[in-house]
């Protein structure tokens, strides 16, 4: 996961390096690099429940009109929790009762890969509130560590991401502030993952 992480950061950085002043109107493409803070919600809080300050995403939007954009968004958020002290897990192996005690560390990595659509309430040059949604898949990797051992589990899960936000003109760029609810739906062998993401980023023109 960490290797994927640094490759993704490097790729995003390369995109940023090719950036141009933003024009967010019909026919233009805009990239937004967001710092993404988030909090897990729903059943997944049984696994990790700490607020996460670690995350980012790259949101690319193509404006099909002055008020509508389609695009893709991907990024990474990591959540973690650790036990206050030792905890014990009791389970059965070959009908024998096994108890394991130690400190436990849990990590949850979430990588959304979503197609997006946004509607803007104001035209370019104004403060532009927007609403929209993403649809696509989430790569979800959980890693539980106890002692010198770890167990990793990963799934690709379908999901939705309704979002609201605002683009604020700032010189040649825009500042983005947004709120996204990500819901990766559970499957027969994977738990659903819900997160509320607070995005704060800077937009560049990409064409």
């Amino acid at each position, binding site marked *: 996961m*960490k*290797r994927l*992480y*640094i490759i993704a*950061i*490097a790729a*995003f*950085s*390369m995109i*940023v*390096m090719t*950036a141009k002043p933003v024009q967010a109107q019909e026919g233009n493409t805009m990239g937004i690099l967001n710092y993404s803070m988030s909090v897990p919600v729903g059943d997944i809080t049984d696994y990790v429940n700490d607020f996460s*300050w*670690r995350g*980012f995403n790259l949101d690319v939007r193509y404006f099909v009109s002055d008020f509508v954009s389609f695009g893709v968004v991907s990024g990474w958020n*990591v959540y*973690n929790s*650790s036990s206050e002290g*030792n905890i*014990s897990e009791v389970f059965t*192996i*070959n*009908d*024998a*009762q*096994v*108890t*394991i*005690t*130690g*400190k436990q*560390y849990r*990590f949850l990595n979430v990588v959304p890969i979503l197609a997006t659509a946004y509607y803007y309430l104001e035209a370019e040059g104004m403060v532009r509130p927007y609403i929209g949604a993403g649809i696509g898949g989430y790569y979800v990797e959980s*890693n539980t*560590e*106890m*002692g*010198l*051992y*770890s167990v990793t589990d990963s799934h690709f899960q379908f999901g939705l991401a309704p979002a609201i936000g605002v683009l604020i003109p700032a010189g040649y760029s825009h500042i983005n502030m947004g709120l996204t609810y990500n819901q990766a739906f559970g499957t027969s062998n994977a738990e659903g993952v819900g997160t509320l993401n607070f995005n704060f980023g800077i937009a560049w023109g990409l064409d």
Partner: protein
Amino acid sequence: MNRVKIISALLVVLGLSGCYPKGAEYADDLDLVATIKGNDVDYDKYQTYFLADTVMFVKDNESDVLRPGLQDLILNQIASNMNAYGWTRISNPAIDTGAALITATVINTTQVVSGGWWGYWGGWWGGYYPPGGGYYPGYPGGCCYTYYEYTTGSLVVDMIDPSDSGNGGPGLQPLPLLWGGVANGLVTGSDQSINIRVQKGINQMFWDSPYLDKN
């Protein structure tokens, strides 16, 4: 302008890569204790135990020796817990043939991990995935080389019934396990800190096995 962009991109890479959440920070954070309750064992059948007077030492480095004092510490801690649980220690198993036999084994294994660039990043993050695919703790690897060596130690405590005929059949057969405990962790730190961790590990084995308590 390009230089500013390149520097900005590098700062993004360095800044974000340094914020991956950390796991264990200290050696004792990695201590793990596991116990196994034998299948269908009637512990009421056993009231006495015989504790083997030697701790077996299994190691992958021929020059390693069990540190002086560690054997006594292990045996005394096991006996203390067994006695506290109401078991009676015997010294001659030939007389009390119904006693459970308890053995202790220390297993030390040295791990060596080296790698290239990825190994460096993994180590820096307190990484968990060496090139071979196993798990290793995040030991500092220095700034410019990727070499990790650490020793893991396990204390295995077994309780068996020497009068049991085992699984039957010809030849030597393993005796069924009545109860087993394993304390596993990194062999690092001062002798005193390791002693404390060993004692805690043994105590934890018994706390996790209340079915052994005869009180």
